[in-house]
């Protein structure tokens, strides 16, 4: 089962894009080279577009900065966040591939308990290519993994599972805590390697972290909008959360699965908790309203595509969350703009997109 060598078989190398948002540099790619080099990278440069981001030699990539985003989307560029890693979803939109893997630039290769380097991408691909089991919980976790199976009592009619839309990976070292938790436990490190992949049951919401995330763009791409964050917005650090709630509701509606667990990456940079607190605190209140909204959201039967589901959600966001704060009215509009832009860029296979600086 486990790939022995550091150079794994490039599974899906022509079907998967790696999307990386960055404002600093891409030195971290050196460590990932053995695993990433076969794949095409889409780099979304946040922040000052006049800065040049140096990409290590030997990678095949396209790079987009704010100017490119404005040029390509025109007025619709307003839905893409500025000065926030949420801008990464632009990369999802311009990709032409079936699968996306997105990773933060402070995430490195982790080691498993035997000391071996973990090929995170390979595990994500395994997760995406095998079914999920959202309709009934399997106590031995992912039954499709080598050495595991469905347990006694698991209905046979449900053993084919559902197509997997999302693979949510975890992080060793710096855990993904919110600001209050970081303040109280600044020294806590995640050292526990949990050797499991599991499907999040239908009807259950979860906090989706965008640091180490893969998904089937064909199945769920348009739902992966990372919202309005950063410059000029009242909130930050909720981009992936928002995408995760929308994505899960739509996956549940369309009968798709979301997995979480392996693979682990090594998260090296602890962000400043005071800065985080300023970004998050509105979100901490607002999420108390958002969670019941998403838990109770229901989509009509005629929403049979991701876009239709998403537009319906946007409508409901405006109606119900608009009362909480005007921000949600803006967000609902941006959600619609996002879908319009997505459809425009992805309407036909030959839709030509003016490229970023490609190599």
């Amino acid at each position: 089962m486990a790939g022995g060598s550091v150079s794994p078989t490039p599974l899906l190398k022509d079907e998967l894009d790696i999307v990386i948002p960055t404002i600093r540099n891409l030195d971290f790619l050196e460590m990932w080279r053995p695993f990433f080099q076969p794949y095409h990278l889409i780099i979304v440069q946040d922040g000052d577009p006049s800065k040049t981001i140096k990409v290590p030699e030997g990678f095949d990539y396209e790079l987009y900065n704010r100017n490119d985003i404005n040029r390509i989307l025109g007025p619709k560029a307003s839905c893409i966040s500025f000065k926030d890693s949420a801008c990464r979803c632009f990369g999802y939109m311009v990709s032409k591939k079936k699968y996306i893997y997105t990773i933060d630039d402070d995430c490195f290769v982790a080691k498993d308990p035997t000391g071996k380097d973990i090929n995170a991408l390979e595990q994500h691909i395994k997760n995406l290519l095998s079914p999920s089991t959202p309709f009934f919980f399997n106590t031995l976790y992912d039954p499709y993994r080598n050495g595991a199976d469905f347990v006694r009592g698991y209905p046979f009619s449900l053993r084919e599972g559902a197509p997997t839309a999302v693979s949510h990976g975890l992080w060793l070292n710096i855990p993904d805590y919110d600001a209050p938790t970081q303040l109280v436990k600044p020294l806590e490190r995640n050292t526990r390697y949990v050797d499991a992949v599991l499907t999040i049951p239908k009807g259950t919401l979860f906090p989706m972290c965008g640091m180490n995330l893969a998904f089937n763009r064909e199945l769920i791409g348009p739902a992966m909008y990372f919202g309005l964050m950063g410059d000029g917005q009242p909130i930050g650090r909720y981009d992936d959360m928002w995408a995760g709630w929308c994505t899960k509701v739509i996956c549940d509606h369309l009968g798709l699965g979301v997995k979480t667990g392996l693979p682990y990456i090594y998260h090296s940079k602890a962000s400043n908790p005071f800065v985080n607190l300023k970004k998050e605190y509105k979100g901490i209140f607002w999420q108390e309203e958002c969670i019941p909204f998403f838990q109770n959201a229901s989509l009509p039967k005629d929403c049979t595509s991701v876009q239709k589901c998403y537009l319906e959600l946007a409508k409901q966001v405006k109606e119900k969350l608009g009362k909480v704060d005007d921000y949600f009215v803006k967000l609902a509009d941006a959600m619609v703009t996002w879908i319009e832009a997505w459809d425009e860029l992805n309407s036909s296979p030959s839709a030509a997109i003016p490229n970023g600086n490609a190599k």
Partner: protein
Amino acid sequence: MATVDGRNKCTGKLKFILSYTINKQILFQGMSVPRTLRAGKLNEKILQLFIATGKDEVLSFIRELNIHPVITPVLPTQMAQFSVKDEDVDIVIGAVQSDLTSFMNAWKPIISRFHLIIVKDPDLKEDLKVPEGFDVNIYTKADMDQVAGSALTSQLFSGFSCRYFGYLISKKKYVISIDDDCLPAKDDKGFQVDAVAQHLFNLAAPATPLFFNTLYDPYRKGADFVRGYPFSMREGVTCALSCGLWLNLADLDAPTQALKPEQRNSRYVDAVLTIPAKALMPMSGINIGFNREVLGPALFPGLKLAGEGKFRWETMEDVFGGMCAKVICDHLKIGVKTGLPYVWRQERGDAVQSLKKEWEGVKLMEEVIPFFQNVKLPVEAVTAEDCLVEISKQIKEKLGPLNDVFGQAADAMIQWVNLWRKAGSSSS
């Protein structure tokens, strides 16, 4: 928690951050940051820091979060003391084999300080062999007949179900039950797993069924709630049931094990997690712990297969009972955990032989899923007992027509509740 070095590093870093972001008016020299950090609580000192910024937004944030410096924090969990007294625990062993010597000796270091209830399968002919050195009460067919009458005994308590008699007569708050063909397991570092201690920790710490935590149990040392986990849900709910797992022979059904005769479970997954509300799972009775006060009669010997035998492949009573228990827990807003602890399950029986018997259990499961996914309990049902009575009514109504087995299960559930009430085990 923190080492000396860590403490100094942290002090230095925090001081820098504090001086950089907060007004110089704030005096923090006198403040003991290491102590604050070690305490793991957002206490007066840090609160004062924030308050001293004078920013409206920060102040209203603090008010809204309703931070109590001393009382159970709404904010991040710390490694609180989740402990259970020995005298609140019964360990119930259903003896399906007569010689328990090696089983009990293997578990001795772990269970000898607890009170044990051993219930002998009423169909077992041989005398029980139990080693010395335990605080144990043994119950046999005679005892069961006295409490329930011999007809009911044979209906409810034969085979693996003999353990339910133990649940019935126990007077303790917590019950741990392990199959008699299981031994203590070793963890991934080679240390012996104290399955009892782990079950008790699972039961004492809250469960989190309302929202999924991607770092699994937030109450374990070294873990917490992740970013995006709603604060209003961080207190969790009472954990009513702790379902453990098995190394070596996993709890697979006969067809699966027969197809993969060499497959053994060697993967030690170092996690405990709460099964989310509304999600159903197959509960295995092989290795469980539960809060008897809260769950009461919700674990019951209801579903008896026609060909039920003395191997786990030939039973379904725990799976069926477990689905009812989960529905009840969801309704009562209490939690079910799964994962650690592991036990080592020994080889016994032959899956192919079990396959030859009519494995009706597998077919039956198909019929019950839609029922359990849609069952609704009335608001007035506020105890496990009430819920069980209500579920049995619905089972009789909706599943009874599909198969006699269900009608019988529904009747058995009512008999069980009556026994429960008679034995004075009722929850008020």
